[in-house]
């Protein structure tokens, strides 16, 4: 099969169109550069009626919103993908159970994410200084702060000024008022001395420009907003970039195989397989920016073997794929009898929690390093497949009969509607070299590209954190007058700690550092080995705090993009 050359030469080829790739596209295109964005999934615009799921009812689908192999979070969720992708397997080493969520579409996982937009704090960049484990970032909060500020203003994020040292304030839009279950949470949490503040989500509670609408509180940010009132990379970064003075060409349904290099070992572009005609193409660029997601980027680098880079591109340190780490996670659900037989009103709110608890403790009194935040969920939500399963199992707590049939079931469903809520702990794990992804030489995907296999084990640091989460949840649930549902998970169940990967914050595979022997990219996310290749997804994360990675991905991508522009001006690359 012949490889087909694209004639056009680009200044920059960007692989991936999620948060990192989208931001690089915007900044580099606005600087007047010609940019090719290569995305493995189809074009997606949340405003396109043919693709829109926002405002659809469950009965508009024959399966009423149930999960499908094409959309694991439910068929209305705006992620084309899930834990498994047909024709694109990944494997595990030993008894590893790493779950890898991939979304194949323009904008990637930003189309459905929780929009929790937290800055890393000063301590988060230098965690090793606090507890001696893991590694410090080569940069600090002061390096990233100006970019966080710019991201806040460009994208929009609501929140409140709280003056908490490690939870830096930003340029916030005003937050929405809490819902009823969130007020219950606040009552229970504060009694347990757990701090509660308005959440920080990238949803426009107020207008920020004329290109994007204002939130109309449908609680469906996971379906990607048709008026662009939530942050999705396509609607907020890629489309504006296409309108800017640069030139942006989108290559969708194009699966990148490798970064191509010349005899001197410098990158010349990428090769990709077009999924429509299954032909292989080459695309050339002066600079290659990888933003395929931490693991996919590692895979591309490791598959980019050449005479000058026999161990894979940028992998002279042998660290590409290493230090993979995901957030810790554990959840608990509660039944709140006082919320039975509620008065019904439209409680949709924004797509996500209105209140949350940032990490509130000092680790010197604890038996684990690092912390977690608590997210809260519940409310009078739209029914979907699964609603009404075990319709009156909560009768058990009221001394009433469980099961049965007849119109009493209708009353039970209404009685318990909105009477349950829950909380999720999302915490910081320690990045370890022993947790990694690598190329599996035994397997290729349907495009003939070798796939990844994972090796990942939690340690006691994460297990003890999960145990602490459950202890806290039970205390809060008790304080708010609720009943914790299900059994408290014990040591045999890792204290309810989710499989690694499950929180979808996988980061760290191309770690940042100043020593080329101990890291893959420098502080500007530039490969130590190849000066015209940059990585702007979460691969460069040295640690990930208990903060969702997206805001930091975008701040760093912006910073790196400015560096690229400066280096091009100086003709350094």
């Amino acid at each position, binding site marked *: 099969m012949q490889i087909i050359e694209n004639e056009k030469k680009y200044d920059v080829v960007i692989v991936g169109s999620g948060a990192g790739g989208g931001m690089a596209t915007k900044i580099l295109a606005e600087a007047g550069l010609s940019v090719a964005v290569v995305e493995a999934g189809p074009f997606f615009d949340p405003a396109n009626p043919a693709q829109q799921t926002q405002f659809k009812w469950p009965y508009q689908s024959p399966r009423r919103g149930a999960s499908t192999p094409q959309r694991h979070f439910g068929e209305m969720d705006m992620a084309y993908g899930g834990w498994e992708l047909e024709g694109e397997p990944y494997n595990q080493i030993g008894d590893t159970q790493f779950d890898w969520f991939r979304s194949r579409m323009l904008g990637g996982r930003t189309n459905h994410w929780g929009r929790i937009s937290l800055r890393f704090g000063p301590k988060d960049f230098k965690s090793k200084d606090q507890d001696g484990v893991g590694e410090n970032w080569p940069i600090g909060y002061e390096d990233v702060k100006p970019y966080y500020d710019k991201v806040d203003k460009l994208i929009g994020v609501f929140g409140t000024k709280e003056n908490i040292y490690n939870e830096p304030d930003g340029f916030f839009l005003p*937050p929405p008022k809490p819902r009823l279950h969130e007020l219950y949470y606040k009552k229970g949490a504060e009694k347990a001395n757990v701090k509660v503040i308005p959440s920080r989500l990238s949803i426009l509670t107020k207008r920020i*420009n004329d290109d994007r609408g204002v939130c109309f509180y449908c609680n469906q940010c996971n379906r990607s907003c048709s008026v662009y009132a939530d942050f999705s990379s396509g609607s907020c970064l890629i489309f504006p970039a296409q309108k800017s003075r640069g030139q942006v060409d989108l290559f969708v349904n194009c699966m990148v195989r490798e970064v191509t290099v010349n005899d001197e070992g410098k990158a010349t572009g990428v090769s990709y397989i077009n999924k429509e005609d299954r032909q292989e193409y080459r695309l050339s660029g002066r600079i290659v920016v990888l933003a395929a997601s931490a693991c996919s980027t590692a895979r591309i680098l490791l598959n980019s073997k050449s005479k000058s880079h026999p161990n894979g591109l940028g992998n002279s340190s042998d660290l590409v794929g290493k230090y993979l780490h995901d957030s810790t996670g554990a959840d608990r659900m509660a039944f709140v009898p006082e919320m039975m037989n509620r008065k019904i009103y439209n409680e949709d709110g924004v797509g996500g929690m209105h209140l949350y608890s940032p990490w509130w403790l000092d680790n010197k009194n604890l038996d684990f390093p690092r912390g977690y935040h608590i997210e809260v969920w519940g409310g009078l939500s739209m029914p979907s497949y699964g*609603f009404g399963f075990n319709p009156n199992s909560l009768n058990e707590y009221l001394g009433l009969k469980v*099961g049965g049939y007849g119109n009493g079931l209708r009353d039970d469903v*209404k009685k318990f*509607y909105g009477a349950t809520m829950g909380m999720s702990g999302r915490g910081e794990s320690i990045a370890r070299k022993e947790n990694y992804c690598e190329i599996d030489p035994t397997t290729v995907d349907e495009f003939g590209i070798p796939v990844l296999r994972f090796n990942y084990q939690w340690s006691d640091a994460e297990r003890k954190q999960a145990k602490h989460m459950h202890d806290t949840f039970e205390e809060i649930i008790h304080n708010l007058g609720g009943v914790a549902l299900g059994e408290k998970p014990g040591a045999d169940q890792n204290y309810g700690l989710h499989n690694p990967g499950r929180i979808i914050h996988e980061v760290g595979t191309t770690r940042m550092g100043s020593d080329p022997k101990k890291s893959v990219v420098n502080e500007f996310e530039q490969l130590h080995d190849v000066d015209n290749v940059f990585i702007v997804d979460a691969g460069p994360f040295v640690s990930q705090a208990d903060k969702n990675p997206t805001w930091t991905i975008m701040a760093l991508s912006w910073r790196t993009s400015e560096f690229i522009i400066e280096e091009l001006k100086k003709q350094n690359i």
Partner: protein
Amino acid sequence: MNRRESLRSIVLGSMAGTLALESCTGAPEQEVVDKIWKHQYGRTPKEQAIDEKLLAEQYFGSHEMQTITVLAQLILPPTNQGTIEQAEVPAFIEFMAKNFPSLQTQLRGGMMWLDNHCNNHYQTTFVKCSEDEQKQVLDRIAFPDPKAKEQKQEIQFFSLMRNLVVTGYFTSEVGIKELGYLGNQPNVWDGVPDDVLAEHGMEYDPAWVPKFVDQSKRNDTAQWDDQGNLLT
């Protein structure tokens, strides 16, 4: 981005030109739209093809469909708020059995158990039993013991059927109306209604109230001072 620009972007990925576009839809756009079953929710062409395939198949036979309908009517008898027929519950269960093949044996086998049991006790099939007899059967299988480690097959079967009936009903148009859910439409959220707050002994922290969004100003473009204080 308008639709034409979107299409241009799709085509760019392929040197094969418009072929790519056509392979996605396979027919002129209007024709595709007309062909789509009444269910439309932003499916990809692949998802649509899967749905159409499942919808074109029939898993349960007519006696089984009748049994499902009778069971569903016993689980949620008709009221003036809605019926399981209005909620299209039997068709939903037929679809889910094809959608989740792991449900098939339990549903089909459970219905066989039901007929066998009725034949032994009432010398006829479940659907032909009197309502009293049907209820006698359900009384044996409709009450799982929450403390039990395992439930008998027929109890599991009924629990599954009840789950499908109740979720099918309350995800339907009449069911959602009966439940009273008021969202899934543009709204301006300005907090829990006062009477609800009072009923639950809650209030908005007075120190917090000025921090929340002033909905009368939500369309004023945000501006901040250098310290991040919102000016608008």
